[in-house]
């Protein structure tokens, strides 16, 4: 047995919820950062709903495993392609490649890639600061500019991007990351109003704590959500064309409280 899966992925029958007729028209969804715990759940959710998927990320061996899994489960077409967020000059080729992989057309793009540094290191290490801002913000601007120009011209499509509650208010515990996510949220807000008249939706996702490898073993977590529940929330929000989604929903109220604390008090707090 080799470590990369090989074999025949054919099916005798489709699972009951798979709508084969949905494959007509733009049916492909590009999931960037697909090998993260949430990325897998997101790809699963969209494939289960009858979409073909392009899984993009750095760990191709891992993505190939996920691709095999999705093909077997849902009988959809699944493609894998490399994406390096920090190699900005490759983004155009990446997007062109995605369009070639999806001859029926790309229905939407979901961005999940991100980078969470240790705050104390990010305060002193310029390279780490740049990596944080470039991965979380600059790369999204770079890629989404290509995507949105295409979708705008076509007059359809959805863009769904994982920002963070950390971007709602800068806290001393992670404000370098938070500032990049705040920039991302602002960028998406502008992009949303630009694309509104073209019929392209832009959904900003702000997840709370999710039970993935990124949070496993971290102290001080509470109300940790399962990736599949988050993926379900995101799918619902995108389907309804919503602008923002906090997931789980109660984070909206947690952040409302945090945002409403006067700065004179907030600066003395240890959040």
């Amino acid at each position: 047995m080799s470590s990369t899966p090989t074999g025949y992925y054919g099916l005798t029958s489709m699972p009951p919820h798979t709508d084969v007729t949905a494959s007509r028209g733009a049916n492909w969804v590009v999931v960037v950062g697909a090998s993260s715990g949430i990325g897998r759940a997101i790809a699963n959710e969209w494939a289960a709903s009858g979409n073909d998927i392009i899984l993009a990320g750095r760990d191709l061996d891992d993505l190939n495993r996920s691709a095999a899994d999705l093909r077997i489960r849902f009988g959809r077409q699944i493609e894998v392609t490399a994406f390096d967020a920090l190699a900005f000059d490759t983004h155009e080729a990446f997007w062109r490649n995605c369009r070639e992989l999806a001859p029926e057309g790309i229905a939407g793009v979901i961005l999940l890639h991100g980078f969470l540094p240790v705050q104390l290191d990010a305060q002193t290490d310029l390279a780490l600061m740049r990596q944080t801002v470039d991965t979380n913000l600059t790369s999204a601007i770079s890629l989404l500019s290509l995507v949105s120009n295409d979708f705008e011209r076509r007059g359809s499509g959805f863009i769904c991007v994982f920002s963070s509650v950390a971007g709602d208010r800068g806290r001393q515990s992670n404000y370098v990351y938070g500032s990049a996510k705040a920039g991302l949220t602002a960028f998406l807000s502008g992009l949303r109003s630009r694309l509104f008249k073209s019929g392209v939706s832009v959904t900003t996702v702000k997840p709370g704590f999710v039970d993935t490898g990124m949070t496993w073993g971290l102290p001080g977590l509470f109300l940790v959500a399962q990736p599949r529940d988050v993926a379900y929330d995101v799918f619902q929000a995108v389907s309804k064309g919503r602008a923002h989604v906090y997931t789980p929903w109660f984070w909206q109220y947690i952040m409302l409280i945090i945002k409403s604390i006067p700065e004179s008090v907030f600066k003395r707090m240890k959040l």
Partner: protein
Amino acid sequence: MPRSRLMELSGWGNVPRQAAQVFRPEKVAEARAVVASPPAGTLLARGLGRSYGDAALNENGNILLDTRLSRFLAFDPAAGVLECEAGVSLEDILHTFVPRGFFPPVTPGTKFVTIGGAIAADVHGKNHHRDGSIAEFIDGLDLLTATGEVLPCSREQNSDIFFATLGGMGLTGVILQARIRLRKIESAYIAVDYQQAPNLDAALAAFASGDEQYQYSVAWIDCLSRGASLGRSVLIRGNHATAGELPPGLANGPLNATLRHKRSVHFNLPNFALSPLTVRLFNNRFYARHKDGRKYVDYDEFFYPLDSLLHWNRIYGKRGFFQYQAVFPATKDGGCLRKLLQRLSTSGRASFLAVLKTMGKSSGGLLSFPMPGHTLALDIPNGGPTTVALLRELDAIVMDHGGRVYLAKDACMTAESFQRMYPNVGQFDEIKNRLDPQGVFSSSQARRLGIGEGVMA
């Protein structure tokens, strides 16, 4: 190095409870990173934690939870061969493949087990008398060993390691993925025949005369009945129903059964919930309700009656319970079985569910449990040292009759008993020490029973 989390873990019996640093890799590369630079202490892979005692515990050591390594990797519908990561659960396989006409070749009494765990315990099911244990259907597996190497193992390749890993309780390394042959089915239903047996002789006679007609065969046995009714049972035997024999009117077709809604026990019940009185009432009702006859039931109801009650182990309360399962050669008079049942019925220890079945041939796994004979499985609430003493008495009866106790259920056997029950342990230890000379992989149970220490002693 991925982060770990300090957790208190237990087996399904809720006793013992022990702390360990738990890693939960989401990628194969992360699992390899943990094994490549292991933190202080030993390491053990764990799946869904359905073994009962301390088989999946590693007190003050490290646990590698494989539940997020849960992807299907390849499926060949012509041969029915599924290749998947070790953290895939039987539930996932059933959910995905029953509607396509495939069924796990062997299933234990719960579907909440991982393939990795099923291989490590070489699990058996109601079809053991005919098909053997799950090992018979594993075409190959990838084992991540202590040196960080990934060894492909099968009957042809590294076969000694393959047979040490089947039933090897995770002590040879981390099973990363496996190829398993699924069974083709025409329907999601089982044609079940119920047959009452008023005592042990009647039950054994029924087993001996009718078992070859059934792929699945098991008897529920009342451990509290005594005297002339000792061993009063209901035989529950069945075959996969063909599409043609099913009663008309199944809404979704033969392969899409509507499974029951699951309920959950949300907290530990008080100790009096399971007393000899309540169990006696339950047993009388169960016996009376199962008159002789045929029924068509969906696979969930037939194989996994307890899974419909999530966290059913909490019925036994905070004290937890022991599950005892032994296999011993069959004799005409049922000598060993009779002695075990007599000892249990006089002890008055309530056993909510006791199950008797016939076993067929062994798989060749060096530490595998199954062997030809009869197997008896039962639950015993944890009543402290007197319960342990009772279990040791049962061990002695089993050993006298050339039998053995199932490692996936065991929580308190002695090392001496283990060495007598598992004669291949010397061969296992030799392979284990060759693969893992530093003793990276270990478990609380392995240390209690001295597994892997044979060569050095």
